[in-house]
């Protein structure tokens, strides 16, 4: 308990405070943190339910001090001058907010262990002004942020438009020219060309159309990726079944080049939780890449299996030799190796970049390795959960 002398000092301090401010409540706190004296208006500010204030522990009445016991003890030990909380929001029954400042200091700085003084100051008038200023500033910042984002999106769209135009003039032209050429041949020579020639013309048109479709899909994916708008609609997907379907689609290109698929797939479905459309792009782009670069009359091995907590897909083919540096750059957009530049089937080469992004979006990993005796292996590991 406080001595009479201490109590007189408190009254004197509070009187000085009250002379300066209106809306003040106070309490005198014993070293064990119980309230020994309080202004009559303190009870209205207590955050916990309590009938009495005096005799209660400060931390039981005011949630604001839960966890702050050490800070209060530091004041009692003379290690700290005060503990202050500004702008403590206090919602009144009518829904309006008052702003309070809580401050605890030593009752007697010369003898800090004697007890504490806790003062609550009503800072509502100042707080409401501050809130209005903050509100205006934050709303302006939000508008500024939206404008900046809209500008960035505009720039991105302009760049994308340039990319599409540049691709339209280069990458799209070759397959379109080929399609027109072979379609023209079919029309002109439908009566004279033999069945084998006709089949070859159709296969070429089909292959070039696929190349165009793939390029358009990669571009659309790239647009979503760059805009940060790629969404995943996860459902259970059977990778094995997807592999069979994709390779079937590619046979029109694979058979004329005398490539062969060899499959090593589990008997049970290879189920992963993923976006079916994006998983299809992953399998398609990797298979397409293998088909593009595998020398004629070679096998392309497709392995699907469970590996620990992942579903793994490995596509192995005898592609062109690559250095470690080239392998490391393979997943960059628009990256071409020398072999790719010379390959007539090579396109804008967005495919592997798109694959890497989609795999990682599924929480998976994409890797590429090259062994002279085995060829190039692209490995995808997708988490089962």
């Amino acid at each position, binding site marked *: 308990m406080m001595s009479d002398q201490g109590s007189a000092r408190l009254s004197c301090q509070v009187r000085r405070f009250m002379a300066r401010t209106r809306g003040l409540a106070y309490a005198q706190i014993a070293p064990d943190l119980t309230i020994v004296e309080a202004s009559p208006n303190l009870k209205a500010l207590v955050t916990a339910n309590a009938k009495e204030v005096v005799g209660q522990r400060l931390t039981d009445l005011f*949630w604001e001090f839960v966890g702050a016991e050490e800070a209060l003890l530091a004041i009692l030990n003379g290690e700290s001058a005060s503990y202050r909380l500004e702008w403590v929001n206090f919602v009144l029954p009518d829904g309006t907010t008052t702003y309070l400042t809580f401050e605890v200091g030593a009752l007697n700085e010369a003898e800090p262990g004697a007890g504490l003084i806790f003062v609550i100051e009503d800072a509502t008038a100042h707080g409401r002004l501050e809130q209005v200023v903050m509100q205006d500033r934050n709303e302006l910042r939000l508008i500024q942020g939206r404008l900046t984002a809209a500008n960035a999106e505009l720039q991105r769209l302009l760049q994308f438009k340039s990319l599409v135009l540049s691709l339209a003039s280069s990458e799209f032209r070759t397959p379109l020219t080929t399609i027109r050429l072979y379609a023209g041949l079919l029309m002109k020579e439908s009566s004279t060309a033999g069945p084998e020639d006709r089949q070859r013309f159709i296969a070429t048109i089909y292959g070039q159309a696929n190349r165009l479709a793939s390029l358009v899909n990669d571009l659309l994916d790239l647009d979503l990726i760059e805009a940060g708008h790629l969404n995943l609609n996860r459902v259970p997907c059977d990778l094995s079944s997807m592999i069979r379907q994709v390779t079937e689609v590619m046979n029109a290109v694979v058979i004329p080049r005398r490539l062969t698929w060899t499959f090593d797939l589990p008997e049970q479905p290879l189920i992963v939780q993923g976006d079916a459309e994006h998983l299809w792009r992953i399998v398609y782009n990797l298979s397409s890449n293998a088909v593009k670069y595998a020398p004629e009359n070679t096998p392309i091995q497709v392995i699907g299996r469970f590996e620990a907590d992942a579903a793994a897909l490995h596509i192995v083919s005898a592609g062109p030799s690559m250095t470690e540096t080239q392998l490391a750059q393979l997943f960059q957009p628009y990256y071409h190796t020398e072999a790719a530049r010379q390959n007539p089937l090579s396109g804008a080469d967005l495919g592997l970049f798109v694959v890497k992004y989609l795999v990682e979006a599924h929480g998976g990993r994409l890797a590429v390795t090259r062994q002279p005796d085995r060829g190039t292996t692209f490995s995808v590991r997708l988490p089962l959960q």
Partner: protein
Amino acid sequence: MIVIQKKVCLLGDFSVGKTSLVRRFIEGRFDDKYLSTIGVRISRKTLQRSNGTLNLLVWDLAGAQEFNTQASYLVGVAAALIVCDMTRRETLVSCAKYVQQVRAMNQSALLVFVGNKVDLVGESVSAEAELRACSETQGGDYVLTSAKTGVGVDLAFELLARKIEAPA
């Protein structure tokens, strides 16, 4: 029965939805109107647990964009929700700063990262990947929430509660 009382702080840039998350969690409602918080608003939520009662004292702190959160607000913090807005990438970048502030006050404070306003972006892969990376780097779980629809809000606080209960 055991009664535990813990101080939990919500930190994040302005307008990420901290007050709305607290309102949804405590009062089960949502208000579309944006009202900037200054200072701190403290609420209490009592959770009944298998071994007793857990009182979460939830400190909804003003969004600090350019100033440091007042250190005194973080005194005694046991756990924190670090909140970002999934529609504003810059609010995700700030998360590391808030972690630092919490850690400066309590090195072993428990953290859950919250990507709020997920109703406005669907399942944004890039933002979620960044949030996941942030939570992995800083040591904490992450939850996608919408204070508007209520998605993930209880889960975020539940995760925090479980972390508080878990033996150290």
